[in-house]
C-alpha cells in the first residue's frame, strides 16, 4: 500500500515540476517576446549548467521525468556524456561524449522524421 502512495507521490511531483517548467517557458514567451527556439536554447544551457556543476543528479532523483523529459534533461544528458567521456578518453572525449550519449534519441528523431516525411504529406490548413 505504501508503494502505491509513493508512486502517486512521484507522479504528482513529475506532473508539477514538468508543468511548472513549461509554464515558466510560457511566461518567457508572453512577457519577453523571446522566440521558442531561443527559449529552447536557454533551457538546454540551463540543463548543461546544472549537470556541469553537479546539481542535476539530485534534482533528477527528486523530480524524475519532470526534469528529464523537458529539454533541460537533454542538455544534462549531453553534458553528462561529455564529462564522462572526457574522464575516460582524455580531453578528446569531451567532443564526442555528448553526441554518443544522446544518439539514441537524436538518431531516432532524424530517421523517423525522414520516414514520416516520405509517408505523409503536410496537411493544408
Amino acid at each position: 500500500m505504501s508503494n502505491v502512495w509513493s508512486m502517486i507521490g512521484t507522479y504528482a511531483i513529475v506532473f508539477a515540476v514538468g508543468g511548472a517548467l513549461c509554464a515558466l517557458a510560457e511566461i518567457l514567451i508572453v512577457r519577453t517576446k523571446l522566440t521558442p527556439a531561443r527559449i529552447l536554447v536557454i533551457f538546454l544551457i540551463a540543463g548543461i549548467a546544472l549537470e556541469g556543476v553537479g546539481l542535476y543528479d539530485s534534482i533528477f532523483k527528486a523530480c524524475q521525468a519532470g526534469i528529464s523529459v523537458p529539454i533541460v534533461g537533454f542538455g544534462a544528458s549531453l553534458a553528462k556524456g561529455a564529462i564522462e567521456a572526457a574522464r575516460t578518453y582524455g580531453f578528446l572525449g569531451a567532443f564526442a561524449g555528448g553526441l554518443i550519449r544522446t544518439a539514441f534519441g537524436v538518431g531516432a528523431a532524424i530517421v523517423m522524421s525522414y520516414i514520416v516525411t516520405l509517408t505523409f504529406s503536410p496537411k493544408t490548413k
Partner: protein
Amino acid sequence: MSDKTNAVKQRNERYNKYVNTVTPKTSMTKALLHSFLIGGLTCIIGQAIGDILAYSVPSLSKDMVANITSMILVTVAILFTGLGFYDVIARQGGAGSFLPITGFANAMASASMEFKTEGLIFGTSAKLFTIVGPVIVNGIVWSTLAGLINLWILGMY
C-alpha cells in the same frame, strides 16, 4: 515642417491605438494553465513509459531505460506530427508542447515535412534542422565546454 511631423506623430499614435484594439488579448492565466497541463502530462507519460519498461524488462540498465523512453516519446511525437495530431496539441499547449523532448521531435518533423516540396536533399534534409539546429549546435558546444572544464579545472581537485 513641424506641422508635418506633428501630423505624422498623431497618425502613428492613432495607428498604435488601433493595433492595440485589434490584437487579440490572450488570457495569460489560460495560456499558463494549458502549458502547465500539457507539459505536466507529457512528463507523466514519459515517467510511465520508463516505469513500465523498467518493470517489464528488469535486465535493462537505467541508461538504456532512459534511451528507449526518449526514443518512444520522439517516435510517437513524430508520428503524431505526420498525422496532423500534434498541431492540435500545439495550438492549445504553447510552451507545454515545445519544451518537452516531444516538441523537439515535432519541430524536426514539421520542418522536414513543410519543405518536402523543395526536394529531399535541399528541402527535407537541409530544413530538418531549421528549428532544432540551434539546440544541437549549442548543446554540443556548451556540453563540450562543460566536459573540458570538468576535466581540466574540477579534475585537479
